């Protein structure tokens, strides 16, 4: 039971990292990114390829330390966000949404088809688990601590950033782009920075995910698991509020995995139906929140509004 709880919290924490990254992009800057799964995959594969021992099937075998993998995941995700941002960030927010879905799809196609790089649909296995041999049974507990530490660092960075003049400009852009432009702010640059930083956070989340599961394949980065759940988490918790984002991650993941436990008692013949039913449930939950409490459970960080009213 305890071991399940630890497992549950680890996954929850990884989703929390994703949700924090998305909150920076959407909640604080108004960037509509529905390509979360793409950055997740980029982070996971980058770290996996860099830290694994050599194998003949695909690129990799650099045997680099875990921490290098994590940092590289952030950097590569950031670079991809930069490349994506250049052509898309000048577009309307809904165009950006369509563009990010396309990017996530292309990343998925690459991961699926470029076997020399990613081993294709067979996926990458044997991704090193840091300090695994040292810790043995207590490993998951250690990993939970690690996730919490990473989460705390990211949370701290975002809060500091948001309360700085930089964060104030971000929110001004989200509220009224024209005013921000006339105030002499380089709107494009600030949005690009937010997109990159958010993507780097997602990349870190992806790397942490890869090292925990030790196996990744294109299946793990489908839009449902990779993007949609993260969005539901953010909307339910409250966009524009980092604590809300984390609360949303906890609640949504509880519902998602809770229903998984329930449906696991069903006969195996209808497991695919049960899986579909769980997605419908999450979809309905999202619509109900949008209709009844669009600001989410916690609503926007009160600090945010007070800053804007200055």
């Amino acid at each position, binding site marked *: 039971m305890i071991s399940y709880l630890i497992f549950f919290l680890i996954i929850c924490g990884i989703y929390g990292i994703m949700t924090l990254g998305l909150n920076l992009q959407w909640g604080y800057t108004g960037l*509509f990114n529905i390509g979360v799964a793409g950055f997740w995959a980029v982070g996971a594969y980058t770290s996996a390829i860099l830290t694994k021992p050599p194998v003949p099937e695909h690129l990799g075998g650099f045997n680099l330390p875990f921490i290098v993998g994590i940092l590289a995941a952030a950097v590569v995700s950031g670079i991809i966000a930069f490349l994506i941002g250049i052509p898309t960030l000048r577009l309307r927010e809904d165009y950006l949404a*369509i563009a990010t879905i*396309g990017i996530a799809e292309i990343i998925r*196609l690459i991961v699926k088809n470029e076997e020399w790089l990613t081993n294709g649909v067979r996926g990458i296995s044997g991704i090193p688990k840091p300090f695994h041999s040292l810790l043995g049974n207590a490993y998951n507990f250690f990993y939970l601590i690690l996730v919490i530490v990473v989460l705390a660092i990211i949370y701290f960075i975002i809060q500091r950033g948001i309360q700085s003049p930089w964060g104030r400009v971000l929110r001004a852009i989200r509220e009224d782009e024209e005013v921000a432009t006339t105030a002499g702010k380089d709107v494009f640059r600030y949005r690009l920075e937010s997109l990159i930083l958010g993507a780097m956070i997602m990349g870190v989340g992806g790397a942490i995910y890869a090292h925990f599961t030790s196996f990744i394949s294109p299946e793990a980065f489908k839009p449902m698991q990779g993007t949609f759940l993260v969005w539901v988490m953010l909307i339910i918790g409250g966009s524009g509020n980092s604590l809300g984002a984390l609360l949303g991650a906890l609640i949504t993941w509880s519902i998602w995995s809770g229903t998984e436990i329930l449906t696991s008692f069903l006969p195996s013949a209808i497991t695919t139906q049960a899986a*579909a039913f769980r*997605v419908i449930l999450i*979809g309905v939950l999202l619509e109900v929140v*949008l209709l009844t409490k669009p600001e989410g459970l916690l609503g926007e960080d009160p600090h945010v509004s007070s800053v804007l009213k200055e």
Partner: protein
Amino acid sequence: MVLLLQLISNGIILGCIIALGSIGLSLLYGILKFGNFAHGDMMTLGAYFAFLFKVQLGMPMWAAFVLAMALTAFVAIIVDQIIYKSLRKSDSIILLIGSVGIALILRNFIQLIWGPQNHFYDKGIQMPIKLGLGVRVKPNQILILVVTVALVILAHLFLRKTKMGKAMRAMSDNMDLAKVTGINTEQVIKWTWVLGAVLTAAAGILLGIDTHLSPSMGWNLLLPLFAATILGGIGSPYGAMLGGLVIGVSQELSTLIIPPTYKPGVAFLIMLLMLLIKPTGLMGRSV
């Protein structure tokens, strides 16, 4: 040369399907000012409704076709009244998020009812007909072309000749003016959903006839649908038709130079280029 013509011919068939789907997407985008991310899954729903009537209830194909279109339109109106109508007061991006949720609900509803496996309207294999110059088409593909042309003409007449169709174009032009003019905008919105749903259901059924049915068939076409819509100019149904054909043919032709698995990426690249060069689209108005 033969390969080239064959690819163009395949591209036109795919283009027909994309065009049918994107006409409604474009109109809804123009009128409600949001990208309906559930449009692809509405397409799938139409295809499965036809499967229900044709295969499961044993009706003739033409009847299944019409009934499936009607039932899809009905679902679209229900969804609009329950979800989108209330969300219309808020920012258009909230509508977009709502439609992402609807997309998932629809797709998984389909999976719940009909299962994750592929389905077929017809088990038989069709012998291709040889056209000139070595190009081969299946009889079904000719059917797809004919049905598409017929539906496009009907849609055109609807938009040009009926009061409701003109009101749709008017609302796509200027929603505020439409309101003060005395147009019953809620009524027109309902009809727009009907038109969009009917056409996209038809696209789904034709796609099912051409290949097979699967729960993600429409979702996989969402990117090409948006690409066609943006290429043609948002709110311009005629642009969407043209855009659909361009995207369909380009996707097929791209296989000459890149692996076929990257076909969806082609639609995306064309869309991105269009957004960078001329965001109003080929036939769009200046915003």
